[in-house]
């Protein structure tokens, strides 16, 4: 499964990139699985996701919870709680 990942704010800074397209194994079924899989990929991901409980996710521009399924997703984004306005 090929997914474009997008990172924002301090998650982007810790990972060191704003966007990447990765081949994700089929057993990575949910957003929670994806967080776990990325965390294991390297220290920069581990640092980005160390406070995993505060990180928000969106699939194809829609806010989702951790148990959301990735099937059919083209773009998954990870970001801190929003602070606009």
């Amino acid at each position, binding site marked *: 499964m090929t997914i474009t990942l*997008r990172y*924002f*704010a*301090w998650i982007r800074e810790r990972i060191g990139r704003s966007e990447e397209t990765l081949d994700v194994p089929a057993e990575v079924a949910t957003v929670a699985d994806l967080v776990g899989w990325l965390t294991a990929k390297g220290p920069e991901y581990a640092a980005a996701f160390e406070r995993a409980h505060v990180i928000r996710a*969106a699939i194809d*521009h*829609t*806010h989702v919870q951790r148990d959301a399924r990735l099937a059919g997703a083209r773009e998954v*984004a990870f*970001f*801190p*709680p*929003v*602070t*606009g*306005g």
Partner: protein
Amino acid sequence: MSVRVQSEDFDIGREIAAVMTGNTDIGAVVTFTGVVRGAAGDAAITSMTLEHYPGMTESELEQVEAEAHKRWPLHATRIVHRVGMLMPGDNIVLVVAASAHRHAAFEAAAFLMDYLKTRAPFWKKETDLSGTGHWVDARESDDEALEKWKK
């Protein structure tokens, strides 16, 4: 055109004029303008940088706006949010709500801001006098503010 994300400043008078055009039944216009403050707690702020998620931002703002039109009898609304580097005193965001009567306009503008603050994907980074940047933490009070609009 009622939702915009831009780096340029906005002109409140011009945005109101655009809302009024062709609407002879508007009796009440409420605007909210968010401005960069010169200090965060005790620390002076020299600049603020706003990052957003292009595509998702516009989609969220349009949903928020559509929800407001479902809840109140509004003639027009407008949301303009700036991104990029801003200085203290600079405008950040403008919300305009126009209705026949004032309570709908006030409530819709407050609702738009509460929703925008908790759902629209913008992130603020403040730079202080030493040149150090700090990502602004989300405020719990913003989540609480949203709770009161839940049906």
